């Protein structure tokens, strides 16, 4: 019982991270039908952006105060992620806007490798685990004796996990409301449904596409920093692993759907932790169950869980 609760908590925290990344995948797909495989690396670059702020920007005296260092690291991570996404959109994807779909897809894979290598080269020792500052209250919230095991049945949740979940939910709700009720949000949905007609309503498609990349990257940057704070170390490969999870979450939820991406992410987080705990093969096989579920969902519902009804939602 305790183990189950513990793994549920871990799964939800993992789902929150993946969800923030998955939103970027699903939004970009909704607007330009591109699976931006480099998006996982935007997350990774965001984490390193936060780390760089802590190492080289923050004065020594502030580093210990999380309420100063964390917001600045988040801003730094977002800024770096957004900058990278802007460059990527402008120089890698925009020239291929009217090319066959395979061209930007392959380009995305290339961009992904470029970003991983760029961080490896320019960030000292980024290919081995770099300690990430504990930029949040360094304590665990312990729920005592929930199970029949008495006091041994403690479920402990790291404060940083809780932060991840809270921030992730707040940002998802904000994003949803931005897209549902704002001028640019309507323009995004209109462009997703019929780009030519949207242009005839005075919508500039370039601005919509740039905005989509910016929003996705900002969320990924936040996720990167919070992930670093939670896991306490980062390297230049974190983007690949979490990117694959996030992509899978977006597909599972129905790519193009915001709600689908978030729910898909929580499902995947839970499958990974619970599968690793209870299924045959243990944690070494936890990946397997994610993709087994993905395959099953896609066999019976190829459009994903929330696919058809909301497919064109930005």
């Amino acid at each position: 019982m305790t183990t189950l609760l513990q793994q549920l908590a871990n799964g939800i925290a993992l789902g929150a991270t993946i969800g923030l990344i998955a939103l970027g995948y699903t939004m970009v797909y909704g607007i330009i039908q591109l699976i931006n495989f480099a998006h996982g690396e935007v997350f990774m670059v965001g984490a390193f952006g936060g780390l760089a702020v802590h190492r080289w920007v923050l004065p020594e005296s502030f580093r210990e105060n999380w309420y100063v260092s964390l917001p600045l690291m988040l801003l730094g991570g977002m800024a770096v992620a957004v900058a990278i996404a802007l460059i990527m959109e402008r120089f890698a994807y925009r020239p291929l806007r009217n090319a066959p779909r395979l061209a930007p897809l392959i380009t995305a894979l290339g961009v992904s490798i470029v970003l991983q290598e760029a961080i490896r080269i320019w960030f000292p020792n980024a290919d081995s685990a770099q300690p990430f500052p504990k930029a949040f209250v360094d304590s665990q919230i312990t729920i005592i004796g929930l199970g029949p095991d008495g006091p041994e049945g403690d479920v402990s949740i790291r404060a940083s996990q809780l932060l991840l979940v809270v921030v992730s939910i707040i940002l998802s709700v904000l994003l949803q409301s931005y897209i549902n009720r704002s001028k640019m949000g309507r323009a995004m949905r209109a462009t997703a449904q019929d780009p030519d007609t949207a242009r005839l309503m005075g919508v500039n498609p370039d601005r919509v596409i740039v905005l989509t990349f910016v929003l996705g990257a900002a969320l990924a940057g936040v996720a990167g920093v919070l992930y670093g704070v939670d896991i306490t170390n980062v390297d230049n490969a974190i983007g690949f692993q979490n990117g694959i999870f996030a992509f899978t979450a977006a597909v599972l939820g129905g790519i193009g759907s915001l709600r689908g991406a978030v729910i898909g992410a929580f499902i995947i987080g839970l499958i990974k932790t619970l599968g690793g705990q209870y299924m045959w093969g243990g944690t070494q096989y936890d990946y397997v169950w994610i993709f087994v579920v993905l395959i099953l969902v896609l066999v019976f519902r190829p459009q994903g869980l929330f696919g058809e009804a909301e497919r064109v939602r930005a």
Partner: protein
Amino acid sequence: MSITDNMAAAPAPPVLQAQGVTMVFGGLTALNNVSLSLGKGEIVGLIGPNGAGKTTFFNCLTGLYLPSRGRVLLDGSQLAADPSKVTIAGVARTFQNIRLFPNMTVLENVMVGRHSRMRQDPISTLLRLPAFHRGERAARERSRELLEFVGLTRAEHEVARNLPYGDQRRLEIARALATDPKVLLLDEPTAGMNPQETEATRQLIFAIRDTGVSVVVIEHDIKFIFGLCDKVSVLVQGELLVEGTPEVVRADPRVVEAYLGKPPEEVEADVRAASTEHDTRGEA
């Protein structure tokens, strides 16, 4: 009266002017040297058989196509070949095959039309500051006015794709009007409508004209066009055949011919003439 005389003597400059618009796709000339002039508050009809190039002409007017030759002027300045800029300049349109945003509500569709007429900065949007709410409310109120104008108030919250066909056409008109156009282009606004709906649409177009908007209408329903328009232009095979008042156009034998056909022997002669013409063009 002298005032009337003056007005007649110096007509207001045209709002929209197409000058020698030619559109070539590969080897096919879809439009050849088509000109059109539209005064303020005028309703001009564009008729012609299928494939005459009417919709292509609309696409040139709205910046979807860049004409191969010729130009389009709005209030004397040339329109860019960029649909969003053309909309901002003041030309709006509807489509022959309805192109609403199917998964958005009726109200949202019209509000997308307000896009270029509302300011919203990211800060006040994210923080939901009063400026954001003011802007949204203004856009929503204007959109509701337009829905009332076309008679769709009751359907405000419905998803656009669930609307009956005729309502979808009227929603497209409301959405186009939401861009505050000087010129409204309607591509077959009564296609698929019954007589009552058609009459309602005619009254709606008059009402739009009365707000000072100039209108160009593509339609196959000749009776509808003649009962609506101040001027009619007839396009046949990409060329302007006749233009003038409904009376003039109706009386023109070439129009009757283009629409009703002509005795078979004459058609044969025409085809022969056309093919020789084509050959000479090829040689040149």
